[in-house]
């Protein structure tokens, strides 16, 4: 039952191009129906998960490698899955009204369906490799969706940035998963949890933690990998709401939560997560005040709030983890509704600039209502759900220095301090977000005159924001249904939360009082504080690093490449030979390989063979010393023909035939290629210096000696019986042919041949494309027009191109054609 549910969005994505042809502008409804049905299906699982602990399903994929598409819905998965499908449902309906019908709706819904499927896969997979694949798929679909308006520069930049950063992190988790898989021998998460102690005591444990957290922090936009999230706001608002605040960025948190029973619970794990979470919390709330784009404020706010959740997971106590799950739920509810509200404002006024927006409450009362509840919940004010989780957060943080971060010593007290400061900023920007935009005189500066949006857009926003009130009204019910199960999955114990508004005068309550008091004072001087914040500009920054990296990478790569790619073929082959020789000679010297040469049992060498060897050797030497390419080519083919003669002498007719034909064809090819080149060797380059020639000669001789040595050693030592007898024995009975060579080629090793002919085809396509597309540039180095270049040929084949003029001479070194010998 579970696997079909996960695959449903992918099937819908595959059908979406066809469906969009059938339903035209109404294709969004199809996507909505799919999402809502999935939501209802997962809702119906709640009772079963509560009874059995989890609902599982799976199909085998590559069982020999331990890679299977196994899935399970436990408490943690259930919470995230309901968020994905629930917020997805609201978002799909919203997007129907948000997007114009002339947008590329088929693309939009295809990508978003792929995303939803991938996200469901991430949150339910119990196999690490499957989890990784779905994880990367979310990055890819996010890339496609951020770049939805790819005609514009900024979405392309944002899409690339998000892709590069999240995929780099994805690479990290792949490494971590493979390490864990290697240590335990299984990719199955329950097996790994059972063997958690083995992993934690392994020498590579720190590497596993760092790689896993790299993936989680990049995905959840934690400092310093947060930079992709603000630029990702170039996506259409439903996407920003769905991917970049409510679900995809939660995947990193999910990963941390999922990995906690396996590799969590140590000082390294908790320390890194808590510190990074706190930094993001602080930095995000600080940066949010500086923004003037509504989505910019929300983006930095998301970074900050995710930092809060991450920090709670790092603290790692049962109360902290329960608070993290509770805040995760609340954050999706209030941030999702705020994004949808922002989209409505953008849609109805034509701008998101907070300088232009004033007093919208009078004309857009529903939006004002949504924004008020969302912002107050975000600020942590009663009586909304945000207050409840914020209170739990402050409690855990106040507890941290004496409890589980005690190893940090007095430095641990910085964490409650940071939490309070960040919460003050959060309070300020949340209140300002509502007050500056919705209160006061109605603006007249917006591109479009503001008016309330239709029901299709406001209803999803209202639904999401009503969750903040519902949770606040019935905290016990929500805690019992969703939060307890999720937290229990992480800690592997049974957790029962008791959420209430009034706990008495606790440190957390006092902290809230401080936050509200100082926050209110700062808000009085909001404009001054904002100006002060804006006046500060950091000389270093992750964005600057990213941009210079993106710009510098190809530049330095080119410099590095230019060192090696000189444009001279003899340099290339020289480098290749020297590199090969360094390794092979080193190994041969270490093993004293020459002592293994054994000349016993060698066949008698005839005069004929010696003669052939002399011809081949003389021709080979001549190749290097001839002054004309044509002669070098002919000498080269002389070597080749001599080799084929050897094959005849050795009674290998197949090889001889092939060698002869290959030699003939390659000689023709050489001659045709030479025809394109100017007269002489390299007339326009300075002659090769003697030193270089000597070095090249030595490399050649050394490589020749290497080949000779290897041949001799291989000939003298037969470590294994030759396979030839097997082939000659079975060629007729199994391959149905008496020519062993051909039977091997097409039957015994047919797969090799298959690959070889593929390579041949690809090579032909490559040559064809290079010649056809690069024709105008290919011979430009010599700066001659093609007709003129033709006259400088020295191929000797005049009938290939008949218009060759034998009497044309212009260059000094061109010899008259009929000069006597």
């Amino acid at each position, binding site marked *: 039952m579970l696997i079909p549910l996960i695959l449903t969005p992918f099937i819908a994505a595959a059908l979406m191009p066809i469906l969009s042809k059938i339903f035209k502008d109404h294709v969004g409804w199809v996507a909505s129906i799919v999402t809502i049905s999935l939501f209802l299906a997962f809702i119906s699982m709640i009772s079963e998960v509560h009874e059995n602990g989890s609902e599982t399903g799976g199909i085998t994929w590559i069982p020999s490698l331990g890679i299977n598409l196994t899935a399970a819905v436990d408490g943690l998965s259930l919470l995230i899955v309901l968020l994905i499908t629930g917020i997805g449902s609201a978002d799909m309906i919203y997007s129907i009204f948000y997007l114009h019908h002339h947008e590329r709706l088929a693309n939009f819904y295809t990508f978003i369906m792929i995303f939803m499927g991938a996200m469901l896969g991430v949150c339910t997979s119990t196999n690490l490799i499957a989890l990784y694949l779905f994880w990367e798929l979310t990055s890819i679909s996010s890339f496609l969706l951020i770049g939805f308006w790819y005609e514009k520069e900024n979405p392309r930049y944002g899409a690339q940035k998000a892709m590069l950063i999240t995929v780099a992190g994805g690479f990290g988790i792949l490494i971590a998963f493979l390490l864990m898989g290697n240590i335990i021998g299984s990719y199955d998460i329950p097996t790994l949890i059972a063997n958690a102690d083995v992993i934690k005591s392994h020498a590579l444990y720190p590497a596993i933690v760092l790689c896993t957290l790299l993936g989680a922090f990049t995905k959840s936009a934690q400092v310093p990998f947060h930079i992709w999230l603000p630029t990702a706001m170039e996506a259409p608002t439903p996407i920003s709401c769905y991917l970049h605040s409510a679900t995809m960025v939660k995947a990193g948190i999910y990963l941390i939560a999922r990995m906690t029973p396996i590799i969590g619970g140590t000082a390294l794990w908790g320390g890194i997560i808590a510190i990074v979470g706190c930094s993001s919390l602080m930095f995000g709330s600080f940066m949010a005040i500086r923004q003037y784009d509504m989505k910019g404020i929300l983006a930095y706010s998301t970074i900050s709030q995710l930092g809060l959740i991450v920090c709670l997971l790092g603290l790692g106590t049962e109360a902290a983890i329960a608070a993290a799950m509770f805040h995760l739920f609340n954050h999706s509810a209030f941030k999702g509704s705020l994004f949808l509200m922002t989209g409505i404002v953008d849609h109805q006024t034509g701008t998101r600039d907070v300088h232009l927006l004033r007093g919208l409450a009078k004309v857009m009362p529903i939006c004002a209502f949504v924004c008020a509840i969302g912002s107050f919940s975000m600020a942590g004010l009663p009586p909304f759900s945000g207050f409840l989780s914020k209170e739990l957060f402050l409690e855990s943080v106040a507890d941290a220095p004496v409890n589980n971060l005690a190893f940090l010593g007095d430095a641990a007290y910085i964490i409650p301090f940071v939490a309070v400061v960040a919460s003050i900023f959060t309070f300020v920007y949340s209140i300002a977000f509502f007050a500056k935009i919705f209160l006061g005189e109605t603006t007249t500066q917006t591109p479009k005159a503001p008016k309330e949006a239709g029901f299709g857009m406001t209803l999803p926003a209202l639904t999401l924001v009503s969750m903040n009130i519902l949770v606040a009204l019935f905290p016990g019910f929500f805690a019992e249904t969703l939060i307890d199960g999720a937290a229990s999955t992480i800690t592997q114990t049974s957790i029962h939360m008791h959420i209430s508004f009034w706990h008495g005068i606790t440190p957390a309550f006092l902290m809230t009082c401080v936050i509200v008091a100082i926050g209110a004072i700062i808000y009085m001087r909001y404009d001054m504080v904002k100006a002060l914040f804006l006046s500060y500009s950091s000389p270093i920054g992750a964005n600057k690093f990213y941009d210079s990296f993106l710009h510098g990478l190809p530049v330095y790569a080119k410099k590095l490449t230019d060192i090696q790619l000189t444009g001279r073929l003899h340099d290339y082959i020289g480098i290749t030979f020297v590199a090969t020789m360094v390794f092979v000679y080193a190994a041969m010297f270490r093993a004293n390989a020459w002592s293994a040469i054994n000349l016993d049992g060698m066949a008698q060498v005839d005069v004929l063979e010696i003669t052939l060897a002399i011809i081949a050797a003389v021709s080979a030497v001549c190749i290097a010393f001839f002054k004309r390419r044509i002669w070098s080519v002919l000498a080269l083919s002389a070597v080749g023909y001599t080799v084929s003669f050897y094959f005849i002498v050795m009674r290998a007719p197949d090889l001889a035939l092939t060698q002869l034909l290959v030699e003939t064809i390659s000689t023709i090819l050489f001659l045709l290629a030479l025809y394109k080149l100017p007269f002489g060797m390299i007339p326009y380059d300075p002659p090769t210096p003697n030193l270089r020639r000597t070095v090249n000669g030595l490399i050649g001789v050394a490589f020749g000696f290497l080949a000779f040595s290897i041949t001799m050693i291989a000939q003298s030592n037969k470590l294994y019986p030759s396979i030839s007898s097997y082939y000659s024995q079975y060629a007729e009975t199994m391959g149905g042919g008496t020519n062993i060579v051909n039977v091997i080629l097409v039957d015994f090793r047919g797969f090799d041949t298959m690959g070889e002919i593929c390579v041949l085809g690809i090579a032909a396509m490559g040559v064809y494309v290079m010649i056809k597309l690069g024709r105008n540039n290919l011979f430009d180095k010599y700066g001659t027009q093609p007709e003129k270049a033709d006259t400088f040929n020295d191929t000797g084949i005049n009938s290939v191109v008949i218009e060759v*003029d034998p*009497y044309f001479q212009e260059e000094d070194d061109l010899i008259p054609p009929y000069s006597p010998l």
Partner: protein
Amino acid sequence: MPNKKIDKITQAPVDMAAHLEYLPEQTAHRSKRIETSTLKEAQEQNYKPKDGGINNVILKTTASLLIYFIIIVSIFLYVVGHDNPGGGFVAGLMLAGGVLLLYLCFGKPFAKNFSFDYKLLIPIGLSISFLTGMAGVVFGYPFLYHTFGYVTVPLFGSMHLTSASIFDLGVFLVVVGTTLTIILNIGENK
């Protein structure tokens, strides 16, 4: 500056081999010569080979006769390949060599008139080889599983047929296509 003496010695035979085709006075008809792709046209235009040189006309005449033998030998090599020296690869090279011989003799006009799209041979050949391999899968054997048998055909008697030969046909076509695509494109002038 290259050594002139060596250049002269080495260059002279090349030039003789290369340029003995036409008398000097024919240089005025350069544009016309492009059209002389066949023996008949060459005769009509009364080109006289220079004394003592290699007569291109002989090469052209022989080549246009030889090509039939080359094709037959190529097919022969393919057919007997499974039991005797030969096979699809060699046969393909042989056929490509034959076409190249014509190209060398008749030059660019030949390439122009050679309207057959040899590039297509590559995908066709690859598909044949692949589908032969897939046939095994269809019958429940591994990919590239081959079978063989003896079939009695009238006139020819008992014939030895293998499915590997069909695979070999794919190899043959790919080799012909690749060789011609590479060489004719590189050789193609302008």
